């Protein structure tokens, strides 16, 4: 029976709201990329399965239910796909009981049907998930251009398994509806089933309506990172489809939306979500196609940045513990306790650990890149939500906080299919390096600032915290700068370049280099910055490789190139080449 508020219950038969004579058996799964939700509807004339999903176990469970229905009363069996992505249908291919020939009629929008018939690994996302797909013939093509030429004329259908149905096309514009629609009637005692063509997530996406339920496939996820930009995705189509579905919901005939993944959505919630999805979609002009090659690139980038994110968050949490320790020593435990709310070290450790375990399993089991990219997206999103940047930047080195913030934001930008912003300007290289090193040597809070704040208790607490929490990286460090004799102007992105130099200096200082030498020189059309230091040899080859790859990428984004050498004599040399403006 339906639960309170007429919410449908998973894995139970219940009346289909607003469709007399029809009942529904939803199979609602937790959201993942492996398999979709499935919905079985039975009417006196037909059994309809919407999206068999991507798992053999799920298909077997569904077939058991369908078999029981047919044992009760033999009826034709139809399988409809909201779209031909493997997580919605691959169970058909792998489950003999669901074999389309004879037993069931597979109904797919005509573009999806064409993809299935040619075994299109790109459009079905089989290539993305490294899955083999064999060609599948659809029994009936939905929302075809041919039928649109005869609007409003019912077409009688007779299938090879003896099933009968009537289909009528209502092209967009022929009615106030802005979407192409077809209405299918499976028999005299069955409520009509409307099919709306809603491309955007894929070319063949459809929404299906029976009574008060609207089955929307992945329409509401279509603007999400890692989903937007999939092969077949279209921003323009998506916005048009969202508008069309918005108009349909406004008519007040739909009570619940049944998504391809996750819980059912009451119409009032859907009406709030829809403008947000549309707003997200509107920002996605010119995003890069999310194909297997790009997924592999993003996954590699994800692993590289997570190494840095891990270090930065551990350092920030550690810095807060350090401040608490010093405050305790100063008998300021009240202020120390307040710091605990700025970073939840345990939660962050758990998130980062979960990514590490996922990543290790990904390599051991040779997983698909898209899963790793999505997992990183999930972790980065959670870190962004828990990261109180402004408050932290007042207490610990703002440079660390801002770099972490940029790292997280860059990942989401790249994950969404964009290129992180880059502003290449002409910069005086020697001055930039001197200013950076000076900034990393002198304590940002002077003794005078501490003394002058003693009259104001709050100001004193703030200055005290900052003076404990901000430790100049190069304090007590022997740094030698060999500057070029002449002024060297280069074209670089100042922010990324400064970040790059800071990461390198931090690595050398942190790993125990007793001295650092920075050499700046110009030759022809290029300028070279060499940073070197001596650190004990490390056994962490993989981590070091990820760090070098991360720094190389960052240098490219800064508009320069980087060569790293870790000599056997424990000497580390970073050589950066930038374009010189002569």
């Amino acid at each position, binding site marked *: 029976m339906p639960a309170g508020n007429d919410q449908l219950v998973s894995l139970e038969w219940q009346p289909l709201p607003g469709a007399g004579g029809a009942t529904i058996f939803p199979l609602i799964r937790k959201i993942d990329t492996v398999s979709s939700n499935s919905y079985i509807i039975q009417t006196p004339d037909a059994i309809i399965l919407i999206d068999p999903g991507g798992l053999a176990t799920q298909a077997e469970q569904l077939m058991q239910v369908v078999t029981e229905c047919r044992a009760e009363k033999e009826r034709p069996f139809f399988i409809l796909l909201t779209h031909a992505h493997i997580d919605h249908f691959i169970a058909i291919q792998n489950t003999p009981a669901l074999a389309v020939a004879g037993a069931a009629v597979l109904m797919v929008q005509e573009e999806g049907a064409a993809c299935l018939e040619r075994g299109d690994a790109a459009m079905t996302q089989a290539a993305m998930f490294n899955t083999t797909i064999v060609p599948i013939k659809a029994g009936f093509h939905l929302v075809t251009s041919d039928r649109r030429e005869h609007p409003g004329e019912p077409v009688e259908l007779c299938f090879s398994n003896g099933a009968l149905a009537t289909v009528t096309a209502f092209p967009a514009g022929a009615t106030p509806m802005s979407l192409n629609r077809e209405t299918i009637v499976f028999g005299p005692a069955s409520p009509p089933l409307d099919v709306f063509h809603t491309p955007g997530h894929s070319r063949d996406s459809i929404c299906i309506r029976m009574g008060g339920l609207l089955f929307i496939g992945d329409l509401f996820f279509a603007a999400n990172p890692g989903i937007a930009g999939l092969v077949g995705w279209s921003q323009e189509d998506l916005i048009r489809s969202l508008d069309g579905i918005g108009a349909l919901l406004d008519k007040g005939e739909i009570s619940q939306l049944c998504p391809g993944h996750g819980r059912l959505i009451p119409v009032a919630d859907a009406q709030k979500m829809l403008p947000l999805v549309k707003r997200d979609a509107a920002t996605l002009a010119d995003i890069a196609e999310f194909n297997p090659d790009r997924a592999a690139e993003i996954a590699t980038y994800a692993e590289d940045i997570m190494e840095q994110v891990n270090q930065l968050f551990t350092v920030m949490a*550690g810095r807060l513990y350090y401040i608490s320790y010093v405050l305790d020593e100063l008998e300021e435990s009240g202020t120390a306790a307040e710091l605990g709310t700025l970073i939840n070290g345990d939660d962050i450790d758990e998130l980062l650990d979960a990514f590490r375990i996922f990543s290790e399993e990904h390599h051991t089991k040779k997983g698909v890149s898209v899963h790793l990219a999505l997992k990183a997206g999930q972790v980065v999103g959670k870190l962004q939500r828990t990261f109180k940047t402004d408050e932290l930047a007042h207490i610990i080195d703002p440079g660390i906080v801002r770099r972490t913030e940029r790292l997280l934001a860059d990942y989401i930008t790249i994950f969404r299919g964009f290129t992180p912003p880059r502003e290449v300007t002409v910069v005086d290289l020697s001055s930039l390096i001197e200013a950076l090193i000076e900034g990393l040597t002198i304590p940002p809070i002077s003794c005078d600032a501490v003394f002058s704040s003693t009259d104001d208790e709050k100001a004193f607490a703030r200055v005290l915290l900052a003076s404990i929490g901000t430790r100049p990286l190069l304090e007590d460090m022997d740094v030698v700068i060999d500057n070029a004799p002449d002024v060297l102007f280069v074209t670089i992105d100042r922010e990324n370049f400064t970040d790059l130099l800071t990461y390198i200096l931090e690595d050398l200082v942190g790993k125990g280099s007793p001295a650092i030498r920075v050499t700046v020189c110009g030759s022809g059309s290029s300028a070279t910055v060499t940073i070197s230091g001596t650190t004990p040899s490390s056994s962490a080859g993989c981590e070091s490789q990820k760090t070098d790859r991360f720094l190389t990428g960052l240098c490219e984004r800064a508009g320069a190139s980087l060569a790293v050498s870790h000599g056997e004599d424990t000497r580390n040399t970073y050589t950066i080449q930038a374009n010189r403006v002569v």
Partner: protein
Amino acid sequence: MEIKTTSKDNATTLSLNGRIDTATAPELEQAINKVIDGGQRKVLLDFAGVTYISSGGLRVLLATAKKLKNPGDKFGICALSPEVLKILKLAGFTSIFSIYPSEGEALAGW
């Protein structure tokens, strides 16, 4: 994580092997507390086998430093990998307790 405890020259060394993270930090804290509760006031952590330290691990180190701050107490860490040393340095921990290249050098000074 493996923890091996040895005592010599009135000091106890806990030799650690593995990662100090969410899962293993409580185990380390327990082992250290057992040594301190047993009356030992000179504790050295040998990090030669430690490949990673999380913020949970840093908290255990700080809690230990708080417990061993009376006159005559000693707390130190030795044989850090460059990666772990980097975290401790950047977090500011190297100004709270002593870092030694090896167990021998640490105990010689105690």
